[in-house]
């Protein structure tokens, strides 16, 4: 029986979940949204980053009970048509290799750009140091965040 309601990407999910279950596994196995990834389970890699009430959280160490009543956004809900400036910049620069880390990378970058519309390299390094990419796409991530900042600015200006 459902014991918990989650709002994910503006949709209500009524779930039967152990309250101790990390949000990550509730999103993946119970809500069936597989875009959010498991990489370490111990807040080390950032593959599982989602937005909870607009802040980036590591869903692998966030209990599902804490997410009830909050607005969760996952990679699937970041934009209507894969067109958030961060997604567009990622596409233009062809950032992903295997791609496994990039749901988390993109979700982290989106929060960075909201808080800091024009980040320096050092700002980017600070904000993104929690996201591991084993394929080593870091230089492109940096480049794409600058590009996304530009795109965001352009939309804001006109």
């Amino acid at each position, binding site marked *: 029986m459902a014991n918990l309601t989650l709002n994910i990407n503006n949709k209500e999910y009524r779930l039967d979940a152990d309250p101790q279950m990390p949000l990550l*596994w509730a999103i993946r196995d119970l809500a069936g949204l597989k875009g959010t990834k498991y*990489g370490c389970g111990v807040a080390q890699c950032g593959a599982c980053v989602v937005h909870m009430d607009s802040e980036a959280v590591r869903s692998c160490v966030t209990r599902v009970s804490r997410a009830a009543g909050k607005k969760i956004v996952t990679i699937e809900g970041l934009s209507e048509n894969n067109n958030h400036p961060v997604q567009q910049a990622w596409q233009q620069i062809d950032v992903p290799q*295997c791609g496994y880390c990039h749901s988390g990378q993109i979700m982290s970058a989106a929060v960075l750009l909201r808080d800091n519309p024009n980040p320096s390299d050092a700002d980017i390094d600070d904000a993104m140091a929690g996201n591991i990419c084993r394929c080593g796409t870091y230089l492109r991530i940096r480049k794409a965040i600058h590009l996304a900042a530009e795109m965001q600015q352009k939309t804001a200006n006109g």
Partner: protein
Amino acid sequence: MLALGYFWKADAREAEIIKAIDADDFGVELNAWVHINTSGKVTIFSHRAEMGQGAYQAIPQILAEELEVNLSEVNVVFAKGDNKKYGNQVTGGSSTVRTAYKNLLKLGATAREMLIQAAANKWNVLKTDCYAEGGHVYHRPSGKKFHYGELVTEAAKLEPPKGILLKKRTDYKLIGKPLPRLDTWIKTNGTAVFGLDKEIPDMLYAAVERNPRLRGKVKSFDDSAARRIRGVKDVIKVKMGVFSTYREGVAVIADSTWAAMQGKKALKVVWDDSGFEHLSTDEIYKRMRESLKTKEGLVFKKQGDPAIIFKNAAKKLDVIYETPYQYHACMEPLNCIAHYQGDKVEIWGPIQAPDWIQDFVSKEMNLPREKVIVNMTFLGGGFGRKAFMDYPHEAAVISKAINAPVQVVWSREDDATQGPYRPGMMYRCEGVIKNGAIDAFKVKLAGQNNDHWRSGKKGEPNRSSSEGFLKPYYDTIKNLSINDVPFETPIPTMWWRSVYASTNGFAYESFMDELALEAGKDPLEFRRMHMQDERVQKLIDKLEEVSGWKNRKQNEGYGVAITECFESTVGQIVKVSRNTDGKVKIDHVWAVMDCGWYVNPDTIKAQVEGSIVMGLGAAVNHQVTFKDGKAVDNNFSTYQMPRINDIPPIEVYIMDNEEEAGGVGEPGLPPFAPALTNAIYDLTGKRIRKLPFNLAEV
């Protein structure tokens, strides 16, 4: 007829749906790779895995060139394991393009000619008056056209023509261009289906507690606490094949990944781990060092008589290099789905080696090979680890035991502590300089031979003893020997990105630097002197030009290394300096890749960038440490990955020439560590002969 929506551009979930239904729905088969449906939609089957290296891009980019279709409009689907149809499907050894490109070009061209012939037949005109472009055949005199969908049924009935002339390189529209990757879109919105994301109806989840000592059996286990966990359905003893040995474990089966993982934590298992108890890294390396001192080993290569020169030389360099065991650390931990159904088993997962899985699982489970059906998903990294059969075998064993489809999920901790690992290696390098050049050169290596695990065959030197070393050195170093001193431990070992080149490269190219300095020569010039090969000469020129090697300033350290593996040569120059706080920092990396004929320069650059980042981790962070028979580090908290703030600027250049295609995914890795340590020597006078080393403490 399918709803058109199924054929929207490269959406993985759509592709999954297509895959789930009958293959006929891709349309008509022109060959194993190319299907076209009657509305003209082209589906290309990727016979190899996509783990980031770009096969999902390269295979269609090659085929579309000769087939004359727009790349952005093709649908790409992973082929099932079927090596009768596709040939070798093991994605490893940087082999996808270099082994298949000629065949793929021919297949694309043959299919195109059949479509043109079909149009000529329909119009009853001369074939030579017709041509193909953008998925259509045109009749030049009249301007009439058909799209491929209108021709494919007829075309498929024609005899494939022989002896078709392939395009000249200068006529390529797609090949050689930095075209955007077809899988990027689905990797920015979370729809790419990795192994862990795959679901099949009624699937359960399993987590397995395996012996932390890398081998052995389950003596007994207590599952009472595990069974009390909400969602846990069953607990069973399982096994998986690791080469010719078996590893036993206890599997907890549950209705969610989390419940299975919790159940696993609650297990109490007593292990029988005879033979593996006290193994430690210190002891392993002590034994290696000892054997390099006392044993000559098996001759891998010998020319001239280095022994005589060593005996008579007034001065000889004699040094030891050391490299650690490494863990693959794919971002996506191992996982696999199996559905055993009595007369067959179907497998889905992040898989590099469908052929081997079919071979192994069919043998183990007593099924005909074609009854082991293997489906590849996207891989969240592979690096060699996912070219193995243990994890699919275990999934199949569990599915059979519980009589239900199951996804086995490895935790990061399982992934890190279970091996197989890249073998740790030690190298004893001896050399003599005469008249500013190498007079004698000898390398003895000690370390586990991956082939011993695979074939059990011993008594032959490691066939990869010189992997990474530039072959043209054999022409100029007249007195040379390379020996393999056999070395065994019970640790299972396997290929890791660039295999032995990743460790050999460090030894050979560091030693080359030491010899250059002994000779009083500039290290780049010294390499040039010993290299008659024109191709490598050109690569050296390019490295020198782009890095500003000649104009280096004081307080800057420059280091170079050049290695070759999988038919490609890569040279790298690293520049280092000291921070204001006196710590060494990496300022810049220049890389030049010579992989001959190539498909997508942007993919190549990405692969070299990524290889350098992985090489950086291997040089300054990573080693699997064994203590009391167990791998110590079990997560990223102690097995620290390079992060965005650790990465220096990297510039990658690609040589343009008319040579055959070489590998791309791996050859960029080996030169990084020696180029870095050579640069550090240049700056500080400190020679680093052991990896990993702490950059902050140099």
